[in-house]
């Protein structure tokens, strides 16, 4: 009997020790244990699980302002910005999250947190593109399947209360009692002195991993990777305007769900188009998507106006000195002022955007509010700017050895 007793004691001791370590280190950023500098302050693994942690964390924070979007807003808009002036803010931006997921998470947060007064959402052109296949019912079913992977976390997504709480409990337990979590805890401990990305308790991604990449590899691979990735994504028959009886693709209806929910709860909704580095915009143009991009801006503006005319739509994607920032390829280990790479902007640029979005100051001179009138003007201006920056783009392409 001694053997069997020792067997189970060893089992229980190891399970509880690992559970305690994982709870304390909290590698996935659930912030359920005290934060200690040098032990668990930096959470490099949290970024890979933010779709899990952000479904639960938002309820704990009970924010007054909710930031919604993908990794761009997660890295760009800091909930601790002074511009928020004492408001509780949660950044629910999630890397790679498609529009449906962003909206589902946001609606769930709104339904569960009556504290929310203002939702700020960054929208992206690529999220609205569809191909012909995506319009048929099969794709709708696929979307449902994708949704099923996270709907158990969101109590408002048809999941029964018991299923929601059971699955949620199971998921939270896995963040403590799992080998994954232990591996993540060890990595968390070993990287406390490293420069690496970490998700804060308010959902902000420090994006510090970019610094490490630039110190070791330089900025060139970062630009190469992102621009090639965008090119690859745009390699099919993607369109914006797809339905004969409606100018809007089915993607817009998800934006409509958020508008409607915000309206029902008297929540102020502010939408903005993320800034893109000029190399991103030129890649769109090279792939034949420039007309679609401009059409998309117009459709988003029209759609929002048709749903609720009081909702502001800001555009930060227009060419200007920020967007045209030079890539320091001659000093590859020095940082850019506003961008990490073509798609992701820095906190510093996020500050300027927040100033525009929240303070609406005229002297900011970054971004403009889109209206029917301003759009007509912007379309021509952007076309000219695209043309004017083409030699700059050609030079950059040569330096990056990108395909012509």
């Amino acid at each position: 009997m001694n053997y069997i007793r020792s067997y189970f004691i060893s089992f229980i001791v190891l399970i509880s020790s690992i559970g305690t370590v994982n709870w304390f280190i909290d590698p996935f950023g659930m912030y359920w244990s005290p934060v200690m500098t040098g032990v668990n302050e930096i959470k490099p693994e949290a970024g890979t699980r933010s779709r899990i942690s952000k479904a639960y964390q938002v309820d704990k924070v009970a924010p007054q302002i909710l930031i919604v979007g993908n990794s761009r807003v997660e890295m760009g808009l800091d909930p601790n910005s002074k511009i928020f002036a004492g408001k509780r803010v949660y950044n629910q931006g999630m890397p790679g999250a498609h529009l449906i997921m962003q909206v589902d998470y946001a609606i769930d947060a709104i339904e569960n947190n009556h504290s929310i007064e203002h939702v700020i959402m960054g929208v992206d052109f690529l999220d609205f593109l569809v191909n012909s296949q995506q319009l048929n019912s099969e794709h709708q079913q696929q979307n449902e399947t994708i949704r099923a992977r996270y709907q158990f976390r969101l109590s408002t997504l048809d999941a029964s209360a018991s299923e929601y709480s059971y699955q949620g409990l199971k998921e939270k337990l896995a963040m403590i009692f799992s080998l994954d979590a232990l591996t993540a805890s060890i990595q968390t401990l070993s990287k406390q002195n490293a420069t690496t990305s970490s998700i804060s308790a308010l959902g902000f991604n420090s994006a510090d991993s970019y610094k490490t990449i630039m110190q070791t590899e330089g900025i060139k691979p970062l630009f190469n990777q992102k621009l090639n990735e965008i090119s690859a994504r745009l390699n099919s028959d993607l369109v914006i305007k797809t339905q004969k009886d409606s100018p809007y693709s089915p993607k817009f209806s998800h934006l409509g769900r958020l508008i409607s929910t915000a309206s029902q709860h008297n929540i102020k909704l502010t939408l903005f188009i993320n800034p893109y580095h000029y190399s991103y915009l030129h890649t769109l143009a090279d792939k034949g998507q420039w007309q679609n991009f401009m059409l998309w801006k117009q459709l988003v503006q029209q759609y929002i106006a048709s749903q609720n005319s009081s909702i502001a739509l800001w555009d930060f994607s227009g060419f200007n000195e920020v967007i045209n920032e030079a890539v320091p390829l001659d000093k590859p280990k020095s940082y850019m002022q506003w961008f990490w790479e073509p798609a992701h902007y820095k906190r510093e640029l996020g500050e300027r955007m927040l100033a525009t979005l929240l303070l609406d100051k005229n002297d900011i001179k970054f971004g403009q509010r889109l209206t029917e009138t301003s759009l007509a003007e912007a379309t021509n201006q952007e076309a000219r700017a695209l043309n004017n920056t083409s030699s700059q783009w050609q030079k950059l392409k040569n330096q990056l050895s990108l395909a012509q």
Partner: protein
Amino acid sequence: MLFNSAEFIFLFLPISLLLFFTAAKRWGNEAAITSLVACSLFFYGWWNPSYLLLLLASMAFNYHVGKRLGNNNNKNLLILGITVNLAAIAYFKYAGFIVFNINALTGAEWDLGNIILPLAISFFTFQQIAYLVDSYRGITKEYSFLHYALFVAFFPQLIAGPIVHHKDMLPQFSQTKRYQLNHHNIKIGLTIFAIGLFKKTVLADGIAVYANPIFSAADAGQSVDFFSAWGGTLAYTFQLYFDFSGYSDMAIGIARLFGIILPLNFYSPYKAANISEFWRRWHITLSHFLRDYLYIALGGNRSGKVKRYTNLAITMLLGGLWHGAGWNFIIWGALHGSYLMLNLAWQAIKAQYHIALNPGKIYVFFAWLLTFLAVIVGWVFFRAVSLDGALTILQGMLGLNGISVPNAILSRLGEAGNLLQTWGVTPSHGGAVFVKTWLWNITLLAFVLTLPNVQDLFAKEQGTLSNYSQVNDNTFWPTWSKSKTITWSSTTRWAAFSGACLALGILTLSQVSEFLYFQF
């Protein structure tokens, strides 16, 4: 129900054990067998209750045919019995494949709909074919359907083997001591189960994430470079071994909790230094089945060299087809048939020309390396879904798709990195995945070459029905003299070690995955 699931470990297994021993104590051995059969049928039905009917029908048919064959060794009845079994497996497993090929050849558009492969059909069908042949030969007899049902459906071995023989199993259940709770068996069972669970969930599932994306990319038509192809193929090589051998260990451990000793299914196959040795050590119960009921039935090596080589080729081709209804499995079988024939020819040449090669360490190492490479190439066809996918991986392994090294590593290599680039090495992304892939591969290679297996650890305790003990003939086992000193004993250290294996295995339950052999 999966062995690596919370419901199995924390509910089904303890309840089954409790029922079995309580029934035996209170109502006798037959009641205990009844409870075990009921638990086994529940275990099978958990997956898909409708296929329980198929299992029951198959058991009823084979029981009656076997009983008649035992009384009257009628060859026609044996042929009928085997034909019915093969027809069932042909319909469920191969009908789609056959129709696909007929359509491809004739341009027809036949459609059989979606035939779902019943769980474990290959295992319980082969087991029962062996029973029919053994009954016909007078090796075994069964008079009780309940006992027969236990032989077929005994849940530790039902889903993925080891393939057991009636003559090995039923006599064990006729011994009264099996029905009494035995601490020694519990200790051994718990320990072997924990080791198996660790192998399956921590090692096999741990490395699977580095194999799957590479094969998916190749099957999707993407190019796979040198290091990715090797990294992914090696990862699959270890995933498959630890998955299946871990499963077999779990089965052996669970059966031992009930006092039953199962046959050995794996005996360190990746230590083999020739391909015959590999097959003596890989999926041993299937190899024995194919040898005894197919190769020997075809004539074996009794009718001259040409017939012997032909029989070997047929056996391996059918062995390949047994694993799955697809051309890649047939190619895999053909490859191994060729390897075995080459090995036979080499042995014959050595004997004829009196070539005496010194079996020193270097010779053994290269013999092992050649064997291991041959096995790895075989696994490419085994794992890839399409022929093109397999060929893409092989091209990558030959360096025909270029060589890429993550930029993060090239940058850190400094001048050496620049030199590599001038030689044509291209930078890529994913430095962390690259490093983890190779760390896993190197660690698991060290494991399979140096550590003793469950059979060696428990040889003194009759861990399985095999008598193997630290056999190192025809193997590359660099740590043999040290490894053979490691054997299980009833000490606190072993208890703590195996309890820790169980804990680490349990900690992966939130990532429950299927066993690779479920669909065979």
